[in-house]
């Protein structure tokens, strides 16, 4: 396992895709950071920092997942601010966003890569 800021970071397997119910998230610990991994109804996966920048707590994986227009999002369980699963941007205030991570599914296994 390598961990630097400049070199490509390897993907870390965190769970099976089946471990995540469609339209929910789970929290994973990736290189010491709490990452919220979401699965949408069409089996796409997204990874965001689990930390809600408004509520200052590590909770986003526990939010409700839905769509606003075409954009899949998670509503923070604290005060319901919506964050795009694709970009991490707060849909009500583009000046605020949470970090996103590379994430993929290989052989049914969800893997989280570098912070984007």
């Amino acid at each position, binding site marked *: *396992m390598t961990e630097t800021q400049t070199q490509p970071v390897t993907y*870390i*397997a*965190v*769970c099976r895709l089946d*471990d995540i*119910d*469609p*339209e*929910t998230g*789970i*929290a*994973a*610990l990736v*290189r*010491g*950071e*709490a990452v919220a*991994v979401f699965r*949408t*109804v069409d089996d796409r996966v997204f990874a965001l*920092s*689990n*930390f809600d920048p408004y*509520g*200052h*707590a*590590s*909770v986003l994986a*526990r*939010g*409700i*997942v*839905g*769509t*606003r*227009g075409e954009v*899949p*999002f998670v*509503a923070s*369980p*604290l005060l*319901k601010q*919506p964050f795009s699963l694709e970009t991490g941007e707060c849909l009500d205030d583009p000046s605020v966003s949470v970090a996103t991570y590379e994430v993929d599914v290989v052989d049914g*296994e969800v893997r989280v890569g570098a912070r984007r």
Partner: protein
Amino acid sequence: MSPHLRKKVVVVGHGMVGHRFVTAAIERGLTETHDIVVFGEEPRPAYDRVALTSFFEVGAEALSFLPSGVYEDPRVTLRTGTSVIEIDRAAQTVMLADGEEMAYDELVLATGAAPFVPPVPGAELGNVFVYRTIEDLEAIREAAKTAKSGAVIGGGLLGLEAANALHQLGVKTHVVELAPRLMAVQVDDAGGNTLKRHIEKLGLTVHTGVMTESIAPDSVAEISVVDEDESGVLDGKVSALKFKDVEEPLPIDMLVFSAGIRPRDALARAAGLDLAERGGVLVDEQCRSSDPHVWAVGECAAPGGRMYGLVAPGYDMAEVVADALLGGAGTFTGADMSTKLKLLGVDVASFGDAHGTTDECLELTYSDAVAGVYKKLVISEDGTRLLGGVLVGDASAYGLLRPMVASGIPLPENPEELILPQSTGGGGGIQLPPEAQICSCNNVTRGDIEAAVDNGCESAADVTKSTKAGSTCGSCKVQVKKIVEDYFTAQGKTVDTSLCEHFKMTRAELFDVVLIHGYKTFDQIIEAHGTGRGCDLCKPAVASILASQLNGHVLAKENRKLQDTNDAYLANLQKNGSYSVVPRIPGGEITPEGLIVIGEVAKEFGLYTKITGGQRIDMFGARMEDLPAIWKRLVDAGFESGHAYGKSLRTVKSCVGSTWCRYGVQDSVGLAIMLETRYRGLRSPHKLKGGVSGCARECAEARGKDFGVIATEKGWNLYVGGNGGAIPAHAQLLAGDLSTEELVSYLDRFLMYYVRTADRLQRTSTWIDSLDGGLDRVREVVVDDVLGLGTELEAAMAAHVDGYFDEWKATIEDPEKLKRFVSFVNAPDIPDPNISFGSTRGQIVPEVGEEPAAVGRSGARDNQTGPVSLGSSIPIGLPTLEETR
């Protein structure tokens, strides 16, 4: 201000207006500088005399404005059953019946009025009553038990009220009126005749234009007069009425005088205060009498020489005096005597110059004798302005017409359309000016209503909450709604009642759709009736609807993705990501053993404990992964989920009740436990709270709850729609003196009706306001069962009660559900480092981080204190998925 500098206000009379003066004085801050002593002659505190007739249905306690008999402000003393018999203005003292004297700095007379009993021979006989106090009604009820027929002398407002009461008590009732028509003050001949026909259809007999000459005693009385009664006063009971110029006497068993009122001004008269020509304490625009330290308000007062026999002007006077005593400049300059009311089921309204006394005025009438409708408009000579009118049988246009008179706006081209039957009261495009007063009870203009919309009100119910328009007599509600809707339309706004972007329907509509189709999952519902994949608004709403209909586990696999923050983990999420846990403690009753278990669990898991407002114990600071272990301990000790996390029943608060309390009249704890157990777990549009008080002292604060039950000597009074929170509301009486069985059946219906038809996050108080007809509509559906839904609603509740299970227990017994209760899917043994605690007053408090804690930044939280500081650092060399599997 030091105590010896405090002044004293003495109030004589504790009726509606006296009570209003005290509440106004408290609200405006007069008690900061003044002590207030109130003497009430009646044995009980002020009650709603306007609703006196409903005493037979709801009992005295429900009418009371102050059931505890004590004002919350300790600087106010109320002494009921105490008469003031003399005022010494020079010494500034009053004398009580027992000789006690009390000094005053300011004296407020609120002695009200007394029923006028005409000097007819026989008026002092037995079974002859007046209609003014609860004691009068108690006596009338007693006499009605044996009386077959009775008469009411007086065909005005009060007389018809009394006739209604007699009629409802099963007495064959005659109304006797001296004037040629009923309600002579308010309506004209034709209106009076229409009213008469309505009333006679109900089985009452109306005698107009007759003068009662004497009241004949029964035969027993004649003997007793001769043999025993030395005073010469007739003894015995009434047996017949003898009318002038009418041969045949009218045989009756009881009689009620309701022929008007006279101001009670005897105290003032004896004290040498100026009186009005026709009685009443003469007062100026500030309601100050000829003595600068004596004030008079309500029916005993005559501002400008005129007495007002309605409560609204009395309330205005009470406010003016409270204001004046604080140095304010408010004045009372007369009142709008327009009236709209329902008498014996008939709508009657009169407004403005109802009798057409203005010079050269014109009248426009519409009369439908078959339908029993009569309407008259009084119009200015040039036909341009509305001056007044009378409506009988259909008063729906009142809300528009009364403000038209007050604002003086020009009449439309065809004014007859205002009263033709196709008119719905909307008035076909008539635009009232902004200053037109729409709600006369609370002085709210059209401009005020529109301003409330500008300030964010989104419905007529919002406007009523914010401006009070329509909240008192309700006669302008339709008009308020129309103004709000027109204003929305004018702004190009439509009132969007959609749940969210995914469902173009209201929650109530969605509830029906789900019920009709029998859907079981969100996916079925959104595919058939929605768009997209839902959001944090519609998903919890659907979850609640499905939970109400299916009684399944909220964490069942197919629907747990819908659950809001708290339901998703069956606990309450707190600010730092930890949870609080609240076991159910029905009615607040708990054993010492139970307390010890809660204490032990809290100690073991390092939790902060606090007693909640709902009489139970909340344990804070639980980590998500610890929840199942905490529940296990609680469930093993016999506890279950308290649903503190759910939009569902929270608690039914209770006082200690008749079991222990020396005032209690019913077992409030037993009932509270029964109700809490019955409705636990019921998913609803918003949280639900209940309360049960064992007597009218109301220690359980039941009227602050969605449903409140207050014990009476005969059973239970049921109140609904109470609310603490941001917009407090007192629960209103739905039905009185219920048996426990009736209570449960009404509550089942009420709650299910609410669950089915309210909007998401709509508490019962706003839901009731939003219904057309408000509380009356709820009563029609719940008590009168006009929709025929009673059985269905009760069956739905029975299904809920039968299907109840403890969500915590079901969760800890299901490994599939437990899988989600881990800190990290790939590192379940590592607690979330972002959750940390400090310490305050010997217990933990949450600490909120500024940025995500990460490995390698240990020390970032070195300053932590307190007993629990988990995960301040995480060892480098993290477990990978392989290692943790």
